[in-house]
């Protein structure tokens, strides 16, 4: 019973981290209809950046993270402005294949430079327990992850609902021509969105890098998790990603509790497939394109 409660609580907290992994994908899909296969690889790329920068900045993860966000914004602007904006008009599949190509390039470049070894980002909270009772142990790290993700999603939600920039984004998401008629340059808006998505991806990259570690190919595994989060929560729904993350996290850890840890990932995939078939548009309403 203790283990069951522990699985439930850990799954919930793990879900927070998953939400940070998925929210960027959700943004990009909801607003420009782009299925970004490179999302996971870009996230792991940011993990590598944080790791390398931290080494060169006398171990300051915070400074490394800030620098990484800037670098990822530049990468996002180039990716969107040079590649994706040119194919978006040709339909969703060519754009999907472009991001697939980008993903292949990123993970192989990482493998070439860093090899296939496991890396991690140092974490100050790795061995601290926030709560320690007979029923449940909550690691400081998991709690930190959840808090950071929840804050990130709340801020994003507010930005999109309440600011003029957010309204312009929603306008571009619902009708590109009408948005252009408002004087909104949708191409430039898409560039901002990609930067924002990669900035959130850097948060995911930081949390994943501190909690689980990563290697060059991890991006593709995290992409599936990101898809899971987004599909369950509803493509394009920001708050939904938190729900999606929690459902996926709880399903995985309960799956591990009932069937053993070997099938933990499989249970996640199957939950995702089932939900995908039953509710193809996700559990929550969203701002997807028409």
């Amino acid at each position, binding site marked *: 019973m203790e283990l069951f409660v522990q699985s439930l609580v850990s799954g919930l907290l793990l879900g927070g981290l998953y939400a940070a992994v998925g929210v960027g994908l959700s943004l990009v899909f909801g607003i420009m209809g782009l299925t970004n296969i490179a999302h996971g690889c870009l996230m792991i790329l940011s993990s590598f950046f944080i790791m390398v920068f931290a080494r060169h900045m006398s171990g300051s993860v915070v400074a490394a993270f800030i620098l990484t966000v800037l670098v990822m914004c530049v990468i996002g602007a180039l990716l969107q402005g040079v590649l994706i904006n040119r194919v978006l008009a040709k339909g969703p599949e060519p754009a999907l294949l472009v991001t697939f*190509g980008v993903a*292949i390039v990123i993970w*192989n470049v990482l493998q070439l430079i860093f090899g296939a070894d496991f890396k991690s980002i140092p974490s100050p909270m790795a061995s601290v327990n926030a709560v320690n009772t007979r029923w449940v142990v909550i690691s400081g790290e998991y709690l930190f992850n959840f808090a950071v993700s929840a804050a990130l999603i709340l801020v994003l939600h507010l930005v999109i609902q309440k600011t003029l920039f957010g309204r312009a984004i929603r306008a571009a998401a619902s009708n590109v021509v009408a948005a252009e008629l408002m004087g909104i340059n949708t191409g430039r808006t898409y560039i901002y969105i990609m930067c924002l998505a990669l900035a959130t991806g850097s948060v995911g990259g930081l949390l994943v890098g501190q909690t689980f570690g990563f290697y060059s190919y991890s991006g593709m595994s995290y992409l*599936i998790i990101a898809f899971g989060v987004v599909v369950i929560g509803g493509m394009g729904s920001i708050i939904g990603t938190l729900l999606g993350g929690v459902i996926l996290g709880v399903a995985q850890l309960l799956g591990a509790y009932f069937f053993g840890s070997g*099938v933990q990932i499989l249970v996640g995939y199957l939950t*995702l*497939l089932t939900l995908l*078939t039953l509710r193809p548009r996700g559990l929550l309403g969203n701002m997807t394109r028409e």
Partner: protein
Amino acid sequence: MTAKRALHSLVPNGKSLGVKTFAVLVAAVASALLPLYGSDYAVSIGLLIFSYISLGQMWNLLAGYSGLVSLGQQAFIGIGAYTLAKVTTVYGQSIALSFFVTAVCAAAFAFVISFPIFKLSGVYFTIGTWIVSESALVFFRNWKFVNFDAGYNIVAAYKIPMGALYLGSFVIGVVSVALVFLILRSKIGLALMAMRDNPGAAEARGVYLYRTKLVCFLISSVYIAVTGVVLYLNIAYVKPGATFGIDWAVSMVFIVVIGGIGTIEGPILGAVIYVILRQYLYNFPGISMILLGAVAVTVILLAPKGIMGALHGRFGFELFSVRRTAAFDGPDREEGARISVKQRR
């Protein structure tokens, strides 16, 4: 005379039939006899090319003609490879039997997963197929029946001479081309073209459309599984990470996108380029993948129809025409408009 007319009715664009057919036949015979005059190295390259032609054709049948972009067809390569290993290494049965069992298993698996994944459309279908394949990978790793992550050696494959392997690959490649050609020239092909040219009108006949796509998916999946058997007769050992790996999907996407999506010649050309590029950069696997990715992105950006599409657009060149002329194209309104525009210029 009547025989000639009969031939003409079989193949479109009758007038250019002679030269092209001859060229294709010569190329086919020359490559069939490659083991007789080619070096071992040339034969091994040819073997790969024909296997990859098959993979490309079958992925193209889905993505290029049926609008089903699947990133999960590697699941069927895995099924083929593992069936071969189980049937020959574990049960000591013949390779021939493993082809048969593979076809049955792949058809069953494809049919079962078609229920959930055909509920998905567009990019959701793409994600769904990929997750199915990744699930299969994780499942095999945790499945005692297939020896978990350790895999098997395919001992039976050691004894097969290179020439025979090559011939198997040749047959699977040539048949894949013929199969796609025939499918496109059949009633299914007509339905696919209608769907591509006018999705709205074709949508109105929803049930038929579903069946058409399902048939294409089943054919593609079973054929990829069978190709998987041929491929793994050459590789000779199976392991979940490699047999169900995303690298297979990468190669299929690359071959079709580079060669020309939605053309029959495209995957042939793409497979040749792919295999030669991989061989050339054999000692730098990372670099070859980076190059493949970069080339694929460039092609999608600059020549979305691939090399064949660009050739066709510029020179009107095509080897296998699956278009039907005269009998099907009535003098419709758009045709009339096109003529009048041309006259004005």
